[in-house]
């Protein structure tokens, strides 16, 4: 798999179809990989592929520093590829501006990331080239995909509140979650707007609650469940639960799954006459 990836990368760089390859390289420890940016064909052997490549490299599409390197080819797993679909639909990139190097994947992370347990994108649904032979994408039923939430949804209102207050208390407002998220691409995020200061910047319980709720809500109908926010959180807060809950509601109410279809309308940018309204008196 790694030889094929390196050969393809070299070929792309030599033929000038792309100017840079966003790929995975050796990390500080064997269990870690880190993003590498290959611009010269002879450096391609820095590229590796193993089960520790959890990183969602599409986040570098939003950063000016990496974009200055020119047209990228991105090594993407199935889940990462969904990000590109959303970025295109939200006019952040054009399809022709990025060369998608899809990699078939049977799950990453040691222990296996929760998203990989119910993965239906072993083969990316959008790519220019595919490394590794195609794996038939499974059809995972709705309940199985959101099974992780059941345990939390069953809690009583008080238990839920206490659980989340305990989690949010740990937040130190380092914003690693929104910095890593490829879909949090606002230059001036709402939390940075201080006239008026909608979200208190301090890391006290009130500020943490309004930050975490707003961050999750702003990803409603957009998050593609790559679980990077949860991985990078230094305080180890299960952030992806909030996004997954919103994804579940979006799919249940609007039959919309983010990142699967490049043509349908973005869930929160449209409406249907018969949207659910049983909670409205």
């Amino acid at each position: 798999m790694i030889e094929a990836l390196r050969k393809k990368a070299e070929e792309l760089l030599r033929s000038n179809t792309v100017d840079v390859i966003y790929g995975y390289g050796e990390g500080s420890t064997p269990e870690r990989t880190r993003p590498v940016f290959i611009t010269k064909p002879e450096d391609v052997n820095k590229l590796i592929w193993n089960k520790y490549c959890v990183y969602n490299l599409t986040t570098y599409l939003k950063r000016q520093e990496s974009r200055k390197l020119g047209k990228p080819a991105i090594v993407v797993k199935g889940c990462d590829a969904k990000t590109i679909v959303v970025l295109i639909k939200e006019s952040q990139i054009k399809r022709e501006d990025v060369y998608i190097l899809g990699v078939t994947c049977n799950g990453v992370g040691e222990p296996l990331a929760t998203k990989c347990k119910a993965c239906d994108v072993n083969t990316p649904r959008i790519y220019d080239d595919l490394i590794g032979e195609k794996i038939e994408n499974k059809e995972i039923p709705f309940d199985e995909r959101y099974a992780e939430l059941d345990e939390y949804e069953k809690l009583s209102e008080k238990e839920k509140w206490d659980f989340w207050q305990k989690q949010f208390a740990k937040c130190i407002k380092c914003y690693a979650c929104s910095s890593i998220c490829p879909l949090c691409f606002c230059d001036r995020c709402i939390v940075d707007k201080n006239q008026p200061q909608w979200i208190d910047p301090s890391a006290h319980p009130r500020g943490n609650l309004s930050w975490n709720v707003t961050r999750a809500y702003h990803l409603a109908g957009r998050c593609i469940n790559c679980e990077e926010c949860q991985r990078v959180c230094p305080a180890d807060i299960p952030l992806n639960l909030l996004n997954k809950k919103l994804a579940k509601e979006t799919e249940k109410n609007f039959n919309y799954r983010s990142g699967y279809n490049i043509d349908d309308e973005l869930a929160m940018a449209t409406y249907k006459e018969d949207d659910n309204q049983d909670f409205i008196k």
Partner: protein
Amino acid sequence: MGKKIGVFVCHCGTNISATVDVEKVAEETKKNNPGVSYTTTYKYMCSDPGQKLLRDKIKEEGLTGVVIAACSPKMHEHTFRNAAIKSGLNPYHVEISNIREQCSWVHPDKPVGTEKSTDLVRMMTEKVRKDKSLKPIKVHVTKRALIIGGGIAGIQAALDIADGGHEVIMVEREASIGGHMAQLSETFPTLDCSQCIMTPKMVEAAQHDNITMHTWSEIESITGYLGNFDVKIRKKARSVDLDLCTGCSSCWQVCPCKKIKSEFDMGLANRTAIYIPFPQAIPSKPVIDRENCILFKDARKKNIKPNDSKVCRKCIDACPIAPVKAIDYNQEDEIIDVKVGAIIVATGFRELEDGLYGEYGGGKYEDVITGMQFERLASASGPTDGKIKRPSDGKEPEIVVFIQCVGSRDPSKGCSYCSKTCCMYTAKHTMLYKHKVHHGHAFVFYIDIRCAGKGYEEFSQRAIEEEGATYLRGRVSRVYKKGDKLIVLGADTLTGSVVEIEADMVVLASAMKAQDDAEQFAQKLSIQYDKDKFFSEMHPKLKPVESSSAGIFLAGTCQGPKDIPETVAQAGAAASKVLALLSSDELEREPVVARVDRQLPPVFSTCIGCFYCQKVCPYSAIESEDIKARDGSVIKTVARVNEGLCQGCGLCAATCRSKSIELDGFNDEQIYAEINAVEFN
């Protein structure tokens, strides 16, 4: 900049002061609310002396913000803002606290009412501290009006506007203007012939130098906004050059295809392939029906240019115009671009298609005709030159049965409304029939006779008493052919008996329906329509001729069934609205519009260009704008609001995740200040 805010608490006679201690509210506000420099109370703030007090205090105290604690903003926000303008204060620094409808009138307990009023006033003083001056948006007005539809409504409106000194573009789908009124014989209640009263108006419209008429044309698309509509008109190919043709009729006399059903005569007569719809047609220049003309059929079959076909060509040969013939087979559709300031929609109605009524023979029996067909029979320029003859064998009918409410007031047939004109025109039909067939007898089956207009009741009584029509109150269950007679089975509920009439002819007073393409047309103009596809007026009582979109007005039956007097009245009303609109060079619009953040380089704007705002905007008022560097390269693509189109709903502001787009008058700081001022803890 610290604001100097004046707070004026109104007694409203005793409406407020009965359950709210207005003095205490004023005093508390002066004591506690930051920025408040002057407070007073007054018996009637909205009265002249009240407004004078406001104007004087603004000047004397040098107030830069005003809060009026009185009745609902829906009542006098405008009044107080005008008072502010008169004393040099930008009106958008004036806010209203609703302490009457939403406090004093609904909370009898005085202390509770007083405390709540103080809160409501505080919320507004806080909001005023964040108010910004807003200048009304000036929108350029194109001094030209567009009239869609050439019936009596369209003609009347066009004449009124043209006489008002403004340019008018009229677009009519058919080959001639005139609409349905031209098809009528005499009109109620005066029985004067429709051609006589309408043709002069049609000629006047044709010759009016302010009116440009496009017949045989349709609206391709309309974009833009109040004062600045960009209209694309598709002039369908007539195959006749209007300038050259003199209307001498040589061509349509030699045309061999004579078997085409004339739409104008509602299928009771035939017309040629090259034809004018009716003798008094304006323009009285023919059009070639490319569907049925054998030359065009041949060209289509051989897939060649029409002019290259050698089949027939009788009309072009007969055309006396030289050196260039007035007929041109290769004429193409033409798209014309026009900019107009206002639009009047007068697209008229369609008669209920007869196939819908299986019980009455459903279009099977030739002698069961609709009201409009009877009009053609009775019309002097009609297929029978005004004589009442049965379409099947041309015999003069001895007994004619008129059936009212065919389609109307019948939810199972899809229109539950009353078509308003049938009672009157059926009474007229019985009179016309009796005048022309003295020994004939007319029966009318009706549910209720609705003749509410001026002189209408007398008219229908005349049909019964003087003309001797027999009115039977009841529905007709079935009409079937027996020999050459039509058996009409009905009930006469007044005598409680079943009635069976052997009639020679049956006339159905068919319902007035919306045009077939009304829905697509409404979507093209983005105006709203009701369940029956008639266009919806802005407000049934107070704004009957305005549509839901600013700058687009309605006239005539396209807005709902109505008779000619009402249509002409509406046309005049719509025209007067347009004249008011076109009277000023610029139009002032409420400046409550959205605005996308703009900053100095290198930031330029906090907008990231995800365009959610564009996707949700109901008025497509948001465009994309490329911010370019000096060398022309695009730095970033951001959103921009078209102030003309934006109606100030705030949808974009609530959808924008980074809050880079805000609604003036309800911007972030103002809403935040209001929530902050609620001050529960």
